[in-house]
């Protein structure tokens, strides 16, 4: 299970952090090159692959790779 | 009535002949709004098109009409609309869009007296600049001017062909007299129809707006043929990417204008008579030329060395032809036209002061009478 965050595309809107049902995303502590705080994964083991983060990301900056590599 | 080409001799109204010309050219969609004096074009196509497997749509207005026409053209069909001067006003945004997207389409303007609502049922030639320069910024179009129902057929067919070759909105600039009169129209056994040029390379090798070297015009796939066409009204590069740079703007605008302007000699169509020893020339277009003809013939009978030129292609304006003709002897050009004097400016510009140019404007509703033109020829002589 892995969550990829594209810091070049992420505009730091925080929508994925807010709406993750398991609250596994938190804001990064360091600024990206774009000057925003992208999300970072806090508790990957609690991810249920619901993909709400993908569904809601307006910048196509997050991708969920399941254990089956789906 | 399910044949596209109704070969034979007919008595047709100009507007009806225009409709037949479109059908002969392969027009599959017509979308138009009722407007005097062009309504009859719509009415005839509202039943003829279905009979030949095409579609007629009555637009909710002129904008609806031309957007549907342009859409159908981008979907692979040949398409046309017809209106009058005040309808062309409403279509200007779409005309500019067709110009920048290089969409082939035919727009018939059966001119009425104006400005504004004017006199719907009477003639004028007031839109000669509107069709050329009416939309915002710079582009080129082609405009053909019929003088009879026969030419309404012939030139509408020609307009479709030119529109496909040059990928520009092409105008039939008729006037109410030509649109509403009835005359003999001969529809031949065979006509020459230009097919749209499609790309000859597969999608991965196709650059959407790169020109073919033999025509200076790009090939045009339709939506749904796998070419992933990026069609937009924004200034764009060869690949269809929008751009705000000067270089891209310059390249695009120059290409859109030059593809027509540089081919002016190929596009020039002029009817000429009595020109060999002409000292005075009467230069006219559209239904005015019918009166000019009679006046010139009568003046010739009186021994006056007068020549006759009738512009059939109005845009691109035939500068090179006029420059050549003027250097061969005439000392005066009379330009009768039914407006305040518009094409006379183009003539003045083209002849560059080498001959006297005399404007004979009549600002709408009434056609020049042959004796009016004849009397002027006598005065000029």
């Amino acid at each position, binding site marked *: 299970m892995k969550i990829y965050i594209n810091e070049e595309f992420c*505009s730091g*809107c925080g929508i994925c952090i807010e709406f993750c049902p398991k609250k596994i995303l938190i804001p990064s502590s360091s600024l990206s090159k774009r000057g925003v705080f992208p999300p970072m994964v806090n508790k990957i083991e609690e991810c249920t692959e619901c993909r709400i983060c993908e*569904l809601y990301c307006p910048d196509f900056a997050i991708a969920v790779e399941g254990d089956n590599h789906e | 009535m399910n044949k596209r080409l109704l070969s034979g001799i007919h008595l047709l109204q100009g507007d009806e002949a225009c409709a037949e010309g479109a059908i002969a050219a392969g027009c599959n969609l017509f979308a138009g709004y009722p407007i005097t004096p062009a309504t009859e074009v719509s009415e005839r196509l509202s039943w003829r098109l279905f009979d030949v497997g095409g579609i007629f749509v009555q637009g909710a207005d002129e904008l609806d009409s031309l957007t549907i026409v342009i859409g159908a053209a981008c979907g692979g069909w040949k398409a046309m609309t017809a209106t009058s001067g005040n309808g062309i006003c409403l279509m200007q945004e779409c005309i500019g869009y067709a110009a920048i997207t290089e969409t082939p389409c035919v727009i018939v303007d059966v001119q009425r007296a104006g400005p504004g609502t004017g006199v719907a049922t009477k003639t004028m030639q007031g839109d000669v600049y509107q069709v050329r320069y009416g939309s915002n910024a710079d582009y080129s179009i082609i405009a053909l001017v019929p003088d009879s129902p026969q030419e309404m057929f012939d030139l509408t067919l020609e307009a479709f062909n030119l529109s496909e070759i040059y990928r520009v909105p092409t105008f039939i600039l008729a006037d109410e007299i030509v649109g509403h009169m009835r005359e003999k129209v001969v529809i031949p056994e065979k006509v020459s129809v230009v097919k749209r040029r499609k790309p000859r390379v597969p999608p991965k090798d196709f650059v959407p707006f790169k020109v073919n070297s033999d025509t200076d015009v790009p090939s045009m796939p339709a939506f749904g043929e796998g070419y992933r066409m990026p069609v937009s009204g924004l200034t764009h590069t060869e690949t269809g990417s929008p751009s705000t740079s000067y270089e891209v703007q310059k390249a695009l605008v120059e290409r859109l204008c030059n593809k027509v302007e540089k081919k002016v000699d190929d596009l020039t169509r002029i009817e000429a008579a009595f020109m060999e020893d002409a000292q005075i020339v009467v230069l006219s277009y559209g239904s005015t030329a019918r009166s000019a003809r009679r006046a010139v013939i009568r003046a010739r009978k009186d021994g006056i060395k007068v020549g006759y030129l009738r512009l059939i292609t109005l845009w691109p304006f035939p500068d090179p032809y006029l420059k050549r003709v003027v250097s061969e002897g005439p000392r005066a050009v009379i330009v009768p036209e039914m407006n305040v004097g518009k094409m006379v400016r183009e003539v003045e510009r083209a002849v560059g002061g080498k001959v006297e140019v005399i404007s004979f404007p009549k600002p709408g509703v009434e056609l020049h009478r042959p004796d009016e033109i004849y009397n002027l020829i006598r005065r000029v002589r």
Partner: protein
Amino acid sequence: MRQHPALRYFRFDRPGTPHLWCEGCGIGQVWYCTIRAIEELELDPDKVLWVGGSGCTGRMCTYWSGDYFHTLHGRPLGFATGVKLANPELTVICHMGDGESAGIGGNHLIQTARRNMDLVAIIINNFNYGMTGGQFSPTTPRGAFTMTSQFGHIEYPFDLCELAATCGATYVARWTSVQARQLIRSIKKGIQKKGFSFIEIMSQCPTQYGRRNRIGNGVQMMKWFKENSIRKEKAAGMSEEELKGKFILGEFVDENKLEFGASLREIIEKRKAQNV
């Protein structure tokens, strides 16, 4: 790095990284929902045309990797009608903004709905004209602040779904950007429906509308949508006072009647039979 699934259909040689919409804007969300609908229906992307007009929503089509038709402000439905009549095999999806569809595009909307033209109209309603700086539109609520209603807006807004339904649309639905799954389902239904499908999405424009009306950023606006979303079945039993400021969501119309292109083609067939 694994890419977001939307990017499989994305044109990267266009403005922005990856696109030009603001931080928190809902348009990217609707873009992906449209992709999901196309994928789940297993449509051939080469037979799907995206049509757009002007403004932020108008730009959606320019990022789609297939055929796109970026047309004039307010007029996508006219152009789309022409394409679809010439090639009925195509799936034609029009994305329009609120001002685009109901202001300058008002007549195109009511005529296309009346004709029941087989198109999918996805309307992103963010209550203003975003790209030009946040001026009011025909859906801006009374009292709202925009660049051209700085004392509080005095005009009455449209209910776009009611408008589309009255004009004859055969599928009408409304969601907010929060109900993304329902939106995907509605887009699929709209694509499959042979008729005019109208799907309205209340969406966040944090930069202009959210900021000026002190609703907040993308997150805060989505929370505002969530808190004020009411399904139409529930709204039926509520008073006008209780429904003030709420977004009434659901499918309002789902019926069948012969669409425009099919009716026109019927004439061709009839005439063929008569002319034989």
